[in-house]
């Protein structure tokens, strides 16, 4: 009887851990070179220099006193785990972003950089 219970418990454990895991990575690619940020010089760099360095921006915004160009790329890492009764999924998306602000004469006034895409992580949802 004890042996039967042990077999039964063993079967339940095997059944419960039977499943599969999937990991995946998605990239929204934008070919701007973050190392060229050092070439930017507020007060001197103009919008044409920026597009020459980074290419076409992802987004352009009209502001009260000029314009802003945004360059953005994303990395998503997904983890999914299927067990018999339980399914868990986790998706994490972070961005590399460069926002450049120009005055009415298209001269760069200031810029902000966030390079977080590499911090995207696989993991469980808790």
């Amino acid at each position, binding site marked *: 009887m004890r042996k039967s219970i042990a077999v039964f418990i063993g079967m339940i454990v095997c059944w419960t851990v039977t499943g599969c895991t999937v990991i995946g990575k998605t990239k929204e690619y934008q070919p701007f070179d973050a190392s060229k940020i050092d070439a930017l010089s507020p007060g001197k760099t103009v919008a044409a220099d920026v597009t020459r360095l980074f290419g076409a921006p992802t987004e352009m915004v009209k502001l009260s006193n000029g314009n802003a160009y945004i360059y953005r790329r994303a990395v998503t890492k997904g983890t999914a785990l299927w067990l018999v009764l339980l399914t868990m999924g986790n*998706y994490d998306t972070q961005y590399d972003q460069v926002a450049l602000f120009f005055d009415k004469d298209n001269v760069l006034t200031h810029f902000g950089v966030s390079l977080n895409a590499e911090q995207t992580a696989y993991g469980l949802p808790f």
Partner: protein
Amino acid sequence: MGFRFKGILIGLCAVFFLTMVNGCLSYRILREAKGNPVALRMEALRVGSTTMGEALAIYGAPSRIAELKGRDLLVYERSVFSQNSIAFGIPITDFAGSSISFSGYTNLTRYDTLVLVFTTDGILEDSVFEQGSALPYLETLFKEEAKRKPLPDHKAVDVLGKRTIPPVNSGE
């Protein structure tokens, strides 16, 4: 002999039960975080003196940029979507014509948002920060929003509460 038969019977029942349950009962937990982490460093912000350049140096590039009635907005945002769902079904279509099934789910999206408002000259005018991801899951999901009390006799009350404003079609 009796014990062995009982053990085999239990084993067969267990296999049958697990086979029935496998795929018919499931619980799913899903989490989807989108955006760079948003952390408020309030001590670094001073309304009336912090410039847009300083804010960009502290917080980096914003998620969104907008112009609002002569003011420029930098929006930093991260959303966290959480889903819990349960599904239960007994496939008896072959002999009963239809199956028994039950499913339920809860979805909750919480936002960490920092909005910085700048004047045309690029000086910080206002800032708003909300850390939604710190809110408890179940409490946030099932909390009833406070219902707004209707004003007596459908009359609006001014800010100081001293004077009532008659409704549009009252003829007063």
